[in-house]
């Protein structure tokens, strides 16, 4: 049975053009949408969240989709970024733009540290270790009150809207900022996937021993994507903090709300492909928000239930995610 190449563009010029047109259209839609929605409206807010979580899922996708490093603890980097940036702002008045750089470095360092003991663990064990990492961060966030403010959480100091302070009066500004972040993350993903590192990763996913025998430094390859993934996730945490103005450890280090959600979005959309997290986010976030709004807290569990079932269905019947389904429907073999 012929397996679909991961990069259809490589083998079919017409398909490549269709791909580019598709992306062009998506970009166009993304640029127009904020102007069609009322500026301070709830729907624009949801759109911002879609972009934010798409970026988060893409960051997760870089590690999991490209090299099979299944992390259940990305919330650890996410929350770390939020705290680092916000604390720098609160205590030293440092602009969140620099906060993002600090978060990038800190997230990368955390990922590097975490990689040392965990990279040689097999799939399930690795997932378990990352889960523990995320939860450790959450517990630290809750108990190290002197630094993190404890379970009460942190508020981002409200200031005059300014670019330098990364606070905007208009939701549209946030939207475009997040869009740029998403585009950059997607470009990072594609750059890795299309380059030498991407080839090495695919090789080691297929058969690690054969890859090693052919000269692939498997540890170094995995380490690299782990660090990149962690660093970007931390930056997304900063954006989240600046957007929400308030966060607490249980939210920002949440296993279900951040770690699993990132993975869920990427997997349902289509893991390992750059479009996957986008499709997943566009589908999942609005539905979640809608059901939160329409139903009571208990009944809102319905959307979660559906997504859980969808995750199971995807994993069993359509491992390449909805993206593969769309491709099939779109007539591409």
């Amino acid at each position, binding site marked *: 049975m012929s*397996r679909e190449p*991961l990069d259809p563009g*490589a083998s079919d010029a017409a398909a490549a053009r269709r791909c580019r047109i598709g992306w062009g259209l998506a970009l166009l839609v993304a640029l127009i949408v904020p102007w069609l929605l009322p500026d301070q409206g709830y729907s624009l807010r949801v759109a911002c969240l879609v972009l934010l979580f798409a970026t988060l899922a893409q960051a997760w996708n870089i590690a999991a989709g490209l090299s099979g490093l299944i992390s259940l603890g990305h919330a650890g980097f996410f929350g770390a970024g939020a705290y680092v940036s916000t604390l720098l702002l609160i205590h030293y008045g440092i602009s969140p733009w620099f906060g993002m750089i600090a978060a990038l470095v800190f997230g990368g360092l955390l990922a590097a540290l975490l990689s040392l003991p965990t990279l040689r663990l097999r799939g399930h064990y690795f997932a378990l270790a990352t889960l523990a990492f995320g939860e450790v961060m959450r517990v630290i966030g809750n108990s190290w009150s002197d630094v993190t403010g404890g379970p009460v959480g942190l508020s981002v100091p409200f200031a005059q809207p300014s670019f330098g302070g990364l606070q905007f009066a208009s939701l549209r500004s946030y939207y475009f900022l997040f869009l740029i972040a998403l585009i950059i993350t997607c470009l990072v993903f594609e750059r890795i996937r299309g380059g030498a590192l991407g*080839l090495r990763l*695919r090789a080691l996913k*297929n058969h690690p021993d054969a890859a*090693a025998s052919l*000269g692939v430094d498997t540890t170094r390859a995995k380490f690299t994507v782990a660090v990149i993934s962690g660093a970007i996730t931390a930056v997304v945490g900063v954006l989240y903090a600046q957007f929400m103005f308030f966060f607490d450890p249980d939210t920002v280090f949440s296993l279900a709300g951040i770690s699993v959600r990132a993975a869920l979005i990427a997997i349902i959309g289509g893991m390992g492909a750059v479009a996957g997290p986008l499709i997943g986010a566009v589908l999942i976030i609005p539905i979640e928000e809608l059901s939160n709004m329409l139903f009571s807290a208990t009944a809102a569990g319905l959307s979660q239930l559906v997504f859980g079932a969808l995750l199971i269905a995807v994993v069993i019947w359509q491992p390449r995610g909805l993206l593969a389904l769309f491709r099939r429907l779109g007539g591409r073999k």
Partner: protein
Amino acid sequence: MSALLEVRGLRKRFGGLIATDDVSFDVAPGEIVGLIGPNGAGKTTIFNQLCGLIRPDAGSIVFDGTSLAGMSAHRICRVGVVKTFQNVASFGDMTVLENATVGGLARVGLAEARERAHAAIARVGLAGREEVMAADLSLPEKARLELARALATQPRMMLLDEAMATLTPQEQREIVGLVRELRDEGITFLVIEHHMKTIMAMCERILVLNFGQLIASGTPAEVSRDPKVVSAYLGTSVQEAGDA
């Protein structure tokens, strides 16, 4: 002429099982040496120690003056020793070109790796199949892909681990021809193969392994007459001995 590969006192045990028991041998540059022995004799274990996938418990492995002991597999590849795997190890969801490019990346950057991949693919006779998914190749094509991948790493020595296990005799002859040509171009070969006729025909020297120990070494003719070798094989199925 000094040996390209010098193995001395190689030892490996797994729990209670001694897989490699004080094995020593040399391989001279440009040789095609065969490694035979009944199932479970420990041939693949030796290969895995030579190419760095398994760490030996004791002994030395010296390749062209460089000690390989304790080196990781990817570094050993860069030193010039590469092992091929059986058909199931091809990177199935990658194209032929991508498979070979991975090998090229062992030494050079992406662009040049692709060039070397193209050359290696052509050398093994797979030209024109670059864009085919490895999983879609026929069995003899997969065997050639294994060689192409390894060739792209610009090896000095290739360890062929049952490279021809699933091939017809005609297909095997073609691979043997290819191996001889590559040897003439400067690559040394160490080969594990179960098809007796093939390995006896292709190798100038044979090492015989049984229960982890080297029990005989010599030309194919010498080795097939050696009573120790015959009894080692008669200890296994009559079928296999009949292959010889």
